[in-house]
């Protein structure tokens, strides 16, 4: 195999120094001369009609410069959304006639400071007629339930169904069938940088500039331009550093529109910084689902078919939610061989904040349920949980799932074996469980799409310029929200030119200069932007190879760039230093302008989200997580004491970054499995603060062990696959299965809080059929 100088190495982040020294600027760190501050007036009701709004008192407050409401012509007709079939554009910058959740913006104010802006917000008088609200998603479809949106009968936002093979026949041929209900995830993205936007208009050029914390800036660039009817060259989005996203900063938010309009009205820069509590209580969350799953197997544990019906709490608007429904079904056919699948996913509107994509998007709900049920089946049949996974694992050879996902490689089997070995399963599986503190080990497996096939312009681009001293400026449209992709792009360029990462400068996204990219989502950045960056550097390298070929009268393809030397293959001693070579190219008889351009799209057929068919991705990563827990049978508390995450990365490109992603996913999973619990009551979120919404802290997370497996996938850049979503997807069921291994109880409703565990233990002691669902 090819030996790389930089790829596969533990290369520290290129922005590490800027971030460690406090010099990296995030949106909230930015200021402009004469800048005004904006604040948002929000609905106190989950569902109400706006009867009247009186801004006169607020307007008279000294220091207030502008107030906008949905009556403003700029906003009156504007709506946005994801725009997929079935995803209506139903979000709006300000509520028009009805509010649909507590915290929905109804007006925005700009003033000379934040305090005055807030005072003005408090002085705005809004008269509402309160309406009955949909506060429990399981009752959203009830007859007589209040209706959120016209044209969406029974509050059904979207229904996705798929049916492959013959599930009924599969059940007839099964030796054992189980039917169980699971309730998943009551969580949110949990980034700790609140939303923030700074907007300003340049009178001379007419250009609107927005600097905001965006995970996928090109969505916002298009949407803001559409809202203000600007041609795209008059809309500029500059991306400061961003404090995490996890799917929660993908799109436009109300504050982006408000800042732009308030800046237009006042002729001044306007900054709006949400508090973290505002970001948590008024923005987005992950879907919560109730999943009824029926699975049939042969005596030996071979999966025959799955019939899955789920209901998802979508919140107030559509957003990307219909795609979540598709993903909850389409990826049920990995990581195990599953010949028959029927799936129905129903998303309903409720009067809460909207549910959207979050790390593990859609896939993780049904995978969580299926992994728990697989352990239940293994126990019923007396099969080892590791053996049942090995029996069903998709093999590492070309494979096509029943719904058309084509895989060239699958390292699942090796990940199962290595995780089981590292956690010590052989020794631990027969340990007796008794006493107060009980230890248990559990497993979860998952597959995750790399480079999701998305609608719209599914491509990435990169451009680069080699300066005459050999250093490189690189532009991509790919956003690094913290995951480390910027470093990887620089590694790719440096690898191909035989230079160091420090000699490559990656420019952060500025839509006026950087090439367009779809988004940082669907585990696509390394995959598509990685390919595009490689293509860009290979483009300029080809130009240099031709120059070298002429100079040395050699075949251009034989010109090698390695360790800061350029030479003809086989004659490293006759080469010249890289810098000299570049100087020769730039100052020869025909001075070269060293520009590289790279692009990557795969032109896969569009996915049919109405039926779940088509090729939704280019390759899939596979992971196994083994978790060991301690359950205190007296308090119901669970502590995760060891985790092993083994993933098929295709090819490891930066182990330091991948370990970081692995640790992060395990940490998220610990929170999602054990403590993260958005409390919804009567249309309100009761715990929007870090104090009450418990995300894992350092004392909750063990040192995670990451074990990479490589399969060198033919479609990935240098053979690579995604590294940020399959471990989390595998980890939540691993933890719940470990609790069962320790105690014998199944916690079918997340999170597995002490009260649920104690209730289940009590029911077990009393010999009752366990009911752990509320």
């Amino acid at each position: 195999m090819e030996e790389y100088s930089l790829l596969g190495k533990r290369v520290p982040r290129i922005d590490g120094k800027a971030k460690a020294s406090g010099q990296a600027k995030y949106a909230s760190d930015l200021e402009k001369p004469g800048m005004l501050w904006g604040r948002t007036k929000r609905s106190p009701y989950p569902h109400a009609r706006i009867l009247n709004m009186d801004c006169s008192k607020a307007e008279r407050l000294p220091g207030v410069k502008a107030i906008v409401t949905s009556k403003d012509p700029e906003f009156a007709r504007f709506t946005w959304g994801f725009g997929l079939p079935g995803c209506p554009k139903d979000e709006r910058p300000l509520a028009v006639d009805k509010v649909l959740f507590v915290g929905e913006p109804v007006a925005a104010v700009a003033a000379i400071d934040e305090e005055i802006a807030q005072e003005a917000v408090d002085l705005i008088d809004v008269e509402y007629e309160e309406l009955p609200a949909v506060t429990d998603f399981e009752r959203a479809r009830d007859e007589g339930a209040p209706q959120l949106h016209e044209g969406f009968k029974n509050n059904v936002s979207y229904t996705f169904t798929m049916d492959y093979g013959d599930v009924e026949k599969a059940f007839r041929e099964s030796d054992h069938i189980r039917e169980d209900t699971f309730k998943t995830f009551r969580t949110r993205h949990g980034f700790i940088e609140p939303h923030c936007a700074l907007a300003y208009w340049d009178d001379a050029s007419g250009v609107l500039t927005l600097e905001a914390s965006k995970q996928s800036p090109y969505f916002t660039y298009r949407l803001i331009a559409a809202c203000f009817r600007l041609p795209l060259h008059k809309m500029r989005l500059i991306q400061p550093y961003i404090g995490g996203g996890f799917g929660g900063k993908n799109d436009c938010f109300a504050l982006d529109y408000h800042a732009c309009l308030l800046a237009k009205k006042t002729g001044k820069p306007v900054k709006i910084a949400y508090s973290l509590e505002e970001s948590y209580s008024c923005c987005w969350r992950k879907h919560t689902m109730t999943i009824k799953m029926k699975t049939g197997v042969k005596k030996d544990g071979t999966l025959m078919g799955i019939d899955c019906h789920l209901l998802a709490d979508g919140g107030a608007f559509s957003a990307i939610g219909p795609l979540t429904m598709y993903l909850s079904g389409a990826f049920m056919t990995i990581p195990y061989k599953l010949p028959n699948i029927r799936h129905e996913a129903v998303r309903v509107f409720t009067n809460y904040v909207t549910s959207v994509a979050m790390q593990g998007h859609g896939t993780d709900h049904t995978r969580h349920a299926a992994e728990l049920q697989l352990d239940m089946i293994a126990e019923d049949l007396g099969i080892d949980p590791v053996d049942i996974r090995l029996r069903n694992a998709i093999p590492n050879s070309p494979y096509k799932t029943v719904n058309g996902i084509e895989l060239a490689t699958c390292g699942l089997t090796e990940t199962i074996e290595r995780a089981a070995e590292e956690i010590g399963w052989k020794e631990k599986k027969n340990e007796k469980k008794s006493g107060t503190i009980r230890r248990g080990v559990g497993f979860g497996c998952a597959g995750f799409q790399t480079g999701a096939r998305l609608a719209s312009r599914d491509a990435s681009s990169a451009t680069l310029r080699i300066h005459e001293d050999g250093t490189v400026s690189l532009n991509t449209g790919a956003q690094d929200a913290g995951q480390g992709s910027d470093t990887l792009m620089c590694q790719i360029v440096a690898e191909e030119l035989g230079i160091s990462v420090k000699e490559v400068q990656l420019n952060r996204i500025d839509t006026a200069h950087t090439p367009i990219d779809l988004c940082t989502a669907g585990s696509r950045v390394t995959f598509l932007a990685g390919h595009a960056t490689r293509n860009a550097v290979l483009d300029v390298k080809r130009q240099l190879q031709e120059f070298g070929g002429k100079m040395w009268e050699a075949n251009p393809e034989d010109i090698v760039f390695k360790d800061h030397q350029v030479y003809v293959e086989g004659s490293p001693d006759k080469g010249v230093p890289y810098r000299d070579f570049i100087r020769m190219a730039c100052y020869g008889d025909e001075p070269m302008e060293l520009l590289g351009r790279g692009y990557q799209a795969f032109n896969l057929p569009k996915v049919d989200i109405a039926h779940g068919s088509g090729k939704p991705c280019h390759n899939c990563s596979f992971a196994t997580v083994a978790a060991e827990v301690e359950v205190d049978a007296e308090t119901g508390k669970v502590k995760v004491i060891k985790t092993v995450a083994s993933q098929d990365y295709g090819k490891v490109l930066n182990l330091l970054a991948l370990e970081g992603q692995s640790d992060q996913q395990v940490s998220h999973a610990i929170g999602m499995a054990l403590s993260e619990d958005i409390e919804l009551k009567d249309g309100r979120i009761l715990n929007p603060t870090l104090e009450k919404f418990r995300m894992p802290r350092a004392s909750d997370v063990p040192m995670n062990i990451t074990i990479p497996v490589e399969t060198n996938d033919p479609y990935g850049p240098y053979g690579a696959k995604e590294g940020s979503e399959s471990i989390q997807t595998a980890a939540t069921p691993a933890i719940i299965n470990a609790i069962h291994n320790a105690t014998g109880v199944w916690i079918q409703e997340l999170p597995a809080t002490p009260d649920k565990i104690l209730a289940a233990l009590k029911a077990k002691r009393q010999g009752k059929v366990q009911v752990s669902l509320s």
Partner: protein
Amino acid sequence: MNGVLHELSVHPLKTLLEVLREDLRLTGTKESCGLGNCGACTVLVDGKPILSCLTLMAEVQDRDILTVEGLVQGDKLHPIQEAFVEHGAIQCGFCTAGFIMAGKALLDKNPNPSEDEVRKAIDGHMCRCTGYGKIVEAILAVPSKR
């Protein structure tokens, strides 16, 4: 402040975080929750880690304040900053300053802490990106760099 005497006239009810970020434009110290639950705004006052979002200016008059910017000597990072970079303890970076200051306060008091002691010292801090493992590793690695 970071070894420099500042004479400022500010409202005594302004928080230290507000003065750092707005009056002195030292934006390396971040505001996340603003309620004392996340640790992102941690700075050292007379060597002790405090939450600057909950500290009023009146409380820090004539005190020695150290922020993440004050650890850098010229162009050179402090060993704990270097350790954070090399060990992959930084991802999005929004929480980083708080963790670095907490780690420094711990190491100044206890130059060779155990893993448990490190975890205890940073338990008031929230990081959503790293899963903490590499932050713990970085802090444990600092003594060997000195």
